[in-house]
């Protein structure tokens, strides 16, 4: 479980990282996994240091390892919506992307041969709206409180 301060996230992430597991480096990104449920995850360069128009970018402080761990946290906690997308957050406050994104979004992937990928999103625009089932799960798991849930529902964050 990722804990909601940067210090503890660093600590938890590094402690929790599988020490004998290093990502596989490919031309377009780093491939992690498979995780306990057999899923691989690719941290894509164009959401990092090789930006493309229209692609959101993670902040540098949120490393590729963090990115993978957040995906793994989504998978373990079943933060998956009816459309098959994974939604993640640290606590609804901490910024993950360079444009004030606080949530991660991993689009549905039904091909087990293709690694998952993800990118930071905002819930305050018209493109991404955190589903109610995900908010319920985050509240259940103690990731957010009722004030944060209200802020997400009212597109403040």
């Amino acid at each position, binding site marked *: 479980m990722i804990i909601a301060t940067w210090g503890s996230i660093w600590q938890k992430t590094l402690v929790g990282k599988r020490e004998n597991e290093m990502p596989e480096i490919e031309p377009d990104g780093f491939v992690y996994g498979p995780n306990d449920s057999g899923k691989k995850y690719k941290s894509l360069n164009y959401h990092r240091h090789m930006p493309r128009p229209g692609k959101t970018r993670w902040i540098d402080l949120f490393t590729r390892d963090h990115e993978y761990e957040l995906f793994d946290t989504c998978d373990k906690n079943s933060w998956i919506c009816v459309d098959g997308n994974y939604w993640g957050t640290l606590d609804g406050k901490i910024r993950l992307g*360079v444009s004030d994104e606080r949530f991660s979004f991993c689009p549905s992937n039904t091909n087990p041969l293709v690694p998952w990928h993800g990118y930071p999103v*905002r819930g305050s*625009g*018209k493109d991404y*709206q955190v589903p109610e089932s995900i*908010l319920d799960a985050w509240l259940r798991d103690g990731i957010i409180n009722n*004030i944060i849930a*209200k802020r997400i*529902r009212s597109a403040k*964050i």
Partner: protein
Amino acid sequence: MIAKRLSLPGNFVEGFVYFDFLWLISAEGDVWAFDILKFVEDRFPDPKVAEAVQLAFARNDQLEFGGVELRLVPDHIELCAAEVEQYSRIFDTKLDFKSILDMRCYYGRAFIATDRSIKQLDVFGRDALAHVPSGRRANGQLGGDIVHDGRCIQFRCQYGIVSASCTKDGGFYASGALSNDKGWRARFKKFSEASFATEFIADRLTNVPDLVEVEFFKTDYHRKDAGPDDDAFENETTDEGDEKFEITDVTETDEAFGKSASRAILGADRQGRISRVFLSKNVLFTVDFEHRVRTVRLTEGQNLAVPKSGRPFAPAPGPILAMTSSAVGMVAELDDAVFVLSEGRWHEIFEEPVYSVRGYPSSKWYRKLTTAVGDERVDLIFMI
């Protein structure tokens, strides 16, 4: 800046000042009408102090800056939970929600936005509430109909129109809200494909369809026919006498003005790094990723004018989640506190995360008030 504060403990999720009452929604879905005037009369036996406190928290248009009254008002008035209950009428409205997303009282009606619908209730002034004993629960008194299915995140009520922002479902409006008919119910019509905020600016209904986009819709803004009880809701009347005017129809987008405003918004930051826009009366605010706020002025007097971007203010102490106006400056909701920007500096006015914060810039009586609803208390903050 001078701030005076009335603090009410309790698990409330929304609050709105209307006709000497602070209307509150509890976490359980009850509506409480806290009687500000009655509480003040009983708490302060000295009539001069009582009058000053009443003026600050219920009729602040009559309170002069630097006058005798203001010095008589204690800086912080705290209630206990028993007092909040004692001075409240509690209505068993059984509102069904996960989150209350907005609330507006307008012409004797309350519009309550939740994650699943818009509900319309009746709200009353002092005379109509007289039959409900203070400190008691009352069932079924406020009525309550669902007037729109689906999530709504923000209302604006002016000129007889209720506008509702329903994010990706669209922007909606219901006209005829000045009706004296007790059976009037809002019937919403869609005017925009997406809406995250609306505001009436000059004779336009202004809409935010996405983070940094703004649309302006033409309306049939016109002088209202005089009615038999135009004075019945004096509180609605703004200093400009806006409620002498009415809108019954929202017609088409004013694309030319929209483009002009967009240029001013994006031009406010040479690198196009605007995070979002917020609407206010006659201006909009742009906020960049360093939390700097700029104003884009949209009017001169009562009319639209060429949009003009101002110089940035000092950066806010964190990301701005919502903004509202107050008599002393813009009020910003941040992650863990509420700040007001007054005389170029940010001042903390509430030190906890809030469910909501709202000013009353169009109100005649409450212009100098801001309400902040935190997890365990509600503050009514008078600022001058």
